[in-house]
């Protein structure tokens, strides 16, 4: 069996006295689409926050491609190829699409000590290309993200992750607050990831969305994994019962 792209071993996390993660061990195989489900407070977000560098575990280990790693901040996670897309947290509405695509990873013409002049032409051209690559068609990279619909925003966020060649895309409730049509679009994006060989972790509390695009289902309840099965071998009813 190949090395899992992400492996967690016995992760524990306490939040001001609450034991939010109680020994979570999980292997994510390269190229799979993993659906992570659970009720509010089940520990899904805690697990994701650790993988994306927003929080650190109190004990336990995280391995990326077999290497023991210490993810101290979001930059570390991105460097390792783990990119997280939040329900509405990953774009600045007041900024243009091309600026948003490159936030924190701006191409520079020249720089001194990490601060330098933006290569705006490259930002524009690359963002148009990146967006077209995920089959989203926006006319101008200068339009403000605030003018896009929710589904389009998620599309841009996914395009951004693809552009930076992320190996694992973590989608944290990407379909929340979206209309039926937009949800279908986002699920389409996730299916597209699989076709391009990108591993994805899709977090949602909507079972239908998860079953529509994932090939393995992991369910969490009260900080522990309570079910881990290929999607074909389980059903919405079985998963619901476990939660």
């Amino acid at each position, binding site marked *: 069996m190949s090395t899992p792209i992400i492996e967690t071993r016995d992760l524990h996390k306490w939040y001001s006295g609450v034991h939010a993660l109680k020994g979570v061990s999980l292997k994510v195989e390269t190229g799979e689409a993993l659906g992570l489900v659970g009720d509010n407070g089940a520990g899904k977000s805690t697990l994701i926050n650790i993988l*994306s*560098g*927003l929080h650190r575990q109190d004990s336990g280990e995280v391995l990326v491609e077999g290497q023991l790693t210490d993810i101290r*901040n*979001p*930059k570390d996670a*991105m460097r390792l190829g783990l990119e*997280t897309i*939040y329900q509405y*947290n*990953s*774009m*600045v*509405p*007041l*900024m243009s699409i091309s*600026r948003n695509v*490159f*936030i*924190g*990873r*701006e191409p*520079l013409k020249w*720089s001194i000590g990490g*601060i*330098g*002049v*933006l290569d*705006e032409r490259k930002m524009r051209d690359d963002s148009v290309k990146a967006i077209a690559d995920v089959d989203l*068609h*926006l*006319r*101008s990279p200068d*339009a403000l993200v*605030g*003018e*896009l619909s929710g589904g*389009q925003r998620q599309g841009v966020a996914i395009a951004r992750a693809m552009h930076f060649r992320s190996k694992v895309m973590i989608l944290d409730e990407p379909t929340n607050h979206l209309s039926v049509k937009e949800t279908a679009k986002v699920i389409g994006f996730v299916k597209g990831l699989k076709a391009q060989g990108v591993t994805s972790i899709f977090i949602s509390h909507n079972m239908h969305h998860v079953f529509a695009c994932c090939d393995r289902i992991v369910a969490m309840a009260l900080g522990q994994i309570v079910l881990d099965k290929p999607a074909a071998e389980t059903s919405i009813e079985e998963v619901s019962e476990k939660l």
Partner: protein
Amino acid sequence: MRRLFKLSLQKPELVSAVLLIVLALVFQMSSNAAFLSLDNMRGILGLLPETALVAVGVTLLMICGEFDLSVGSVFALMPMTMAVLIVGGWPFWLAVLTGLALCAFIGFLNGWLTIRFDIPSFITTLGMMFMARSMTVVVSGGFPPRIKPGEVPSWMFVGFVDDGNLIRASVLWFAGIAILIALLLARTNFGNWIRATGGFMPAAAAMGIPTGKVKIACFMICSVLAGFAGMIQSLRLNSFLPSIGEGMELQAVAAAVIGGTSLAGGIGSILGGLIGATLIRVIDNGMVMSQVDASWFKFAIGALTIFAVVGNAWLRRRGRAMKVETDK
């Protein structure tokens, strides 16, 4: 074409730029052409760089989503510190650098306290406003230091650079600094981080931007600019008083807001801050030139501030509502 119109509607400094032109024309007429005369321009251009420098710093900080009420006190503390050191025998340039370093330290403290203890910068800098003002008086020892004209190279900052005695060196200093800061904001990755941090902090943080450091840097730039402006004013008047810059903090906020900067962060431009500061000076001066009772000055600034914010919000909404295809 429509797209261009839509974009210009969303330019935050649009309202104030139009107002500035209209007011200049009105004052020109009501003052019998004295307003745009060389003599009067000299007066406006003498004071403008000082207030505009402060406004530019405050604008930058507000775009980053924070606020600085201590700029007026720092405006007084920097030249006072510098003057006391010079009287104490320090070389001029070393005294200047020490003064500016002190400003940078105050800016750092403002930022660090705000971020570290997660308190509103309104409170941090309100406290700093009192503390820095008090330090100014303490440093002066109650007696304003006296520096003889010619003892320090003030000409480098406030001397006239043209034959007509119209433009002072301070105008050039201001122009250079303002262009630098405008480029920093518009053309660099750091500017991108400032806008992202002020625009929507959770997204900026999730994308790995060191939002705390970005804010602290903006606090420091803001303080240094305020101190530098205070130094220019003190050198121009050749007097070092502990009371200068009082009330300046709110005028700077007014200038930023009039120039289209949002109090909530993320929106604004350096050019807007400059236009806002100019508008305030023009109103101040134009009312005097038109022989309007000067007691109405603050009323006018207040009304203008409210008008500018309402006008900007309305234009932005109109601009956004204008249908331009974004989806093919």
